[in-house]
């Protein structure tokens, strides 16, 4: 069975030949994996591990790329190195690298100084933005399930532009500003989604982190008021063309899962086991939504033994794989503290024991 068919069957809640697999890795881990597996290309790592999905991204314009470099922490994001040492992206958002250089931090938001009416969004039709995505979709489309990232969909892009605490404050104090900003972002995302849909991708990846470890960042009331209706509009564009909808939010978001299902989300990522019990989510909503991720990146993968990883994978297959609806993988991009043997165990055990019909 081709990876694409495997993934689509799972999303349609049918049982394919085995549980489909996904995964993303930090650049350092990709390097380690290439060395460990004796291969040269990133793509070969994905093939060896049995990953069934491929993701494409929107990029900055060619003009911006001429003066920028890809961020080493997130190569799909490009930045200019400013004389003051800060990094600036195409939106005018500035980052600083932490002292260890492993992560970046948002330090400047253009709408802190500029009025929204004076702020210009990047030109979505500029050359260079979708060429690589198009090429990759063509390359992968008949083999893998192709997914296009439209992450940082609304909430995250809004706070990147206006500052986190400031944006939260505006949600309560200045709904007119919030509505204007979110509509502007929504129109940009609409055009982004249309481009990806025209390329023929299978899945659109939406994403806004609104969860924390045990509670939500945004109150469900606020989320329903400002974000749900706009998400619905964006989802409709893709759904009309038969594209599946994936939604990512780290952490605990149980209060809005029924809302996400209602507006047409097909795949929920990452269902962190420390925050939401995957078996419980499967029991409650498993006939209407596909679980994506579910293997602990906070605990088992970095700190557990190979046996711990094996047990978690088996447990997840047993409780969440029957009748399809599971795409297994780590609950976030694999970080540098995960031992290679745990990564290999995750994929080897899943390939071996994830064969349908499930007999664990």
């Amino acid at each position, binding site marked *: 069975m081709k990876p694409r068919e495997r993934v689509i069957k799972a999303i349609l809640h049918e049982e394919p030949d085995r549980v489909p697999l996904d995964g993303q890795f930090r650049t350092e881990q990709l390097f380690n994996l290439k060395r460990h597996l004796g291969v040269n290309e990133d793509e070969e790592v994905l093939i060896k591990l049995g990953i069934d999905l491929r993701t494409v991204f929107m990029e900055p314009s060619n003009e911006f790329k001429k003066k920028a470099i890809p961020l080493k922490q997130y190569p799909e994001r490009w930045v200019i190195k400013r004389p003051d040492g800060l990094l600036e992206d195409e939106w005018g958002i500035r980052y600083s690298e*932490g*002292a*260890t250089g*492993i*992560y*970046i*931090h948002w330090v400047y938001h253009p709408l802190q100084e500029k009025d929204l009416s004076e702020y210009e969004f990047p030109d979505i039709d500029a050359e260079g933005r979708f060429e690589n995505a198009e090429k990759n979709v063509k390359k992968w489309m008949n083999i893998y399930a192709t997914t296009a990232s439209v992450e940082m969909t609304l909430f995250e892009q809004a706070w990147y532009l206006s500052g986190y*605490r400031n944006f*939260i*404050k505006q*949600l*309560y*104090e200045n709904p007119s500003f919030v509505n204007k900003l979110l509509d502007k972002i929504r129109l940009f995302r609409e055009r982004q989604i249309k481009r990806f849909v025209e390329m023929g991708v299978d899945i659109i990846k939406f994403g806004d982190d609104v969860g*924390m*470890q*045990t*509670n*939500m*960042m*945004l*109150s*469900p009331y*606020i989320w329903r008021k400002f974000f749900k209706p706009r998400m619905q509009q964006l989802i409709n564009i893709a759904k009309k063309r038969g594209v599946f909808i994936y939604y990512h939010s780290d952490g605990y978001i149980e209060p809005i899962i029924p809302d996400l299902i209602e507006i047409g989300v097909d795949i929920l990522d990452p269902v962190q086991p*420390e925050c939401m019990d995957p078996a419980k989510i499967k029991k409650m909503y498993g006939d209407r939504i596909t679980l994506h991720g579910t293997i602990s*990146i*906070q*605990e088992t993968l*970095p*700190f557990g033994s190979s046996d711990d990883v094996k047990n978690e994978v088996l447990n997840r297959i047993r409780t969440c794989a029957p009748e399809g609806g599971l795409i297994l993988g780590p609950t976030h991009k694999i*970080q*540098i*503290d995960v031992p290679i043997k745990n990564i290999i165990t995750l994929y080897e055990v899943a390939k071996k024991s994830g064969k349908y019909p499930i007999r664990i």
Partner: protein
Amino acid sequence: MSKDILNEITNGIVHLEYENVKKLVNSALEKGIKPLDVLEALRRGLEKVGEKFEKQEYFLSELIMAGEIMKDLLNILKPYLLSENPKAKGKIVLGTILGDLHDIGKDIIKTLLISSGFEVYDLGIDVPPEQFVEKAKEVDADIIGISALLSTTVPTTAEVIKYLEKAKLRKKVKVIIGGAAVRKEHIKKYGVDAAVNDAMEGLNIIKAWMETK
């Protein structure tokens, strides 16, 4: 009369009525109500918001909003409070450990600590271990609070303990670590006094420490 207006201030914070609370605070001060009583009414409001957050009736956005209201109102109150400096329940140096750039968790506990009457010295994010100890020494702190969201950064908390021992402050200063990646076994592993991944639990531990001090 003064009790009514103070109750209204507390309820205003609980219901996140920014403009209303601002008006009430100004009018209370004009009426000659003691600034310390106004501060206490605000603190009670923030404490109730914290309790609602713990019960999941409120979410982070509400906690942040209440914290923002409190911050602005403290600026109004500050000139009145200079003459009546209330004694803090304890001094705590707070920061997110080196390599970790997350500040939401740290800001949650900061809001809760301020609402409980602690004096908080916030070092921000990506804080080198020695800086926690230098600041603790400088302000004569009772507690160091270290925040870490990432599994990759929690181990660095052990460095803070080493610097504390070197400065001969380990017996005097209690150390608590908190954050999504923090586990109970880290108490023994890194030599800290408490490890939590829930802000309210952290606050209760800190309060208990200060009560028995």
